[in-house]
């Protein structure tokens, strides 16, 4: 094939410290970012792309990443949400073509049943969706979400309240979580 294998195309020398830091960053935060991305993105494939792009941005701007696990995580999470926000805006105007491997196809009925509720999340803007996901599915406290996203707790509560209301309206159920904001 005419494509140049990545391994051959790459220079051998990258400053070891930068490469090591990026590898360490990936190993420490990939799983957490993927779980968040999978709940923000429409498919596993899109989630993988989202996480990969997040780390690629880290690779391009290593000097901008703060040190310390919590600050690293916060930086990466915010980048991830920003990327998703850009994608969310773009997706309104064009479809995306991708070619990816897949396991056996989902039965149509199961696919529809599974996505009916989940699709309601697609109506939320990415940051609001992230707040809802973190609180409802990751069981994070409001204050912790605020710290992670760099916004105030009041803003987090606002997003939660609005997000739940929008979801409840789309799904057609009562919003049972409004008393549970910690």
């Amino acid at each position, binding site marked *: *094939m005419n494509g140049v294998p990545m391994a051959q195309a790459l220079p051998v020398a*990258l400053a070891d410290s930068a490469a090591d830091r990026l590898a360490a960053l*990936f190993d420490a935060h990939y799983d957490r970012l993927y779980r968040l991305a999978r709940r923000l993105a429409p498919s596993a494939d899109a989630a993988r792309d989202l996480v990969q792009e997040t780390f690629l941005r880290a690779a391009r701007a290593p000097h901008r990443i703060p040190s310390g696990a919590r600050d690293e995580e916060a930086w990466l999470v915010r980048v991830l949400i920003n990327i998703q926000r850009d994608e969310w805006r773009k997706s309104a105007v064009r479809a995306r073509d*991708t070619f990816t491997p897949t396991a056996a196809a989902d039965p*149509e009925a199961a696919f529809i049943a599974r996505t009916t509720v989940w699709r309601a*999340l697609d109506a939320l803007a990415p940051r609001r969706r992230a707040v809802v996901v973190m609180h409802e599915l990751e069981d994070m406290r409001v204050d912790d979400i605020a710290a992670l996203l760099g916004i105030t707790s009041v803003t987090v509560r606002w997003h939660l309240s609005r997000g739940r209301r929008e979801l409840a309206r789309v799904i057609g*159920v009562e919003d049972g979580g409004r008393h549970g904001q910690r």
Partner: protein
Amino acid sequence: MDNVKDLLRDADPLHREPPSSADRDRARAAVLAAAHASARTNRGTVGRRVALAAGVAALVGLAAAGSRVWSGATVHAAAVRFEARLAEKTPTLDLLPVHIAGSTETLYLHRDAIVTNDDVLGASVVPAQDPSQFNIGIRFTQTGAERMRAATASHIGRPMALMIDGEVVMAPTVRSIISTDALLTGNYTRAEADRIANGMLLK
């Protein structure tokens, strides 16, 4: 189950999708490869353009959408000959330039087909998340799968041209190594998806 929290938890895709260490490893390799390319680019030494090209292999495909074009003259049911070729975004002498209508983009095709109709075992239209849109699931024969695997292994992040009747109908970005099964996501109308799937199946 009557509130938003319970419904979301029940629908959470992470409950049904086991984490894939292969995907994780691929992402890790791509990220570190991009860092290498980026470091080389930043040094500004000879071969800056080459380094950029290497970086692009890992960078562009992750966010960029493929280009998709339909020629009004051929969008109708017809006996369709399908083939897939590797493509590039930058020209070299041995590549065939193809203008992508509806955009300023030009794609450069490799001359040999990787797979054709004969290598497609099955193609089916599957619903996308939006119920009015459809994607295409493809299963290749063993020979086709081996060719796709060999071709895409060194082509991740770069485009592949899918041609029907000699015309590039779409150029999706290869996201990872393709072998037996693949999902072509373009959020087509039912008619478009049927046409592509049927075109792939003709012998």
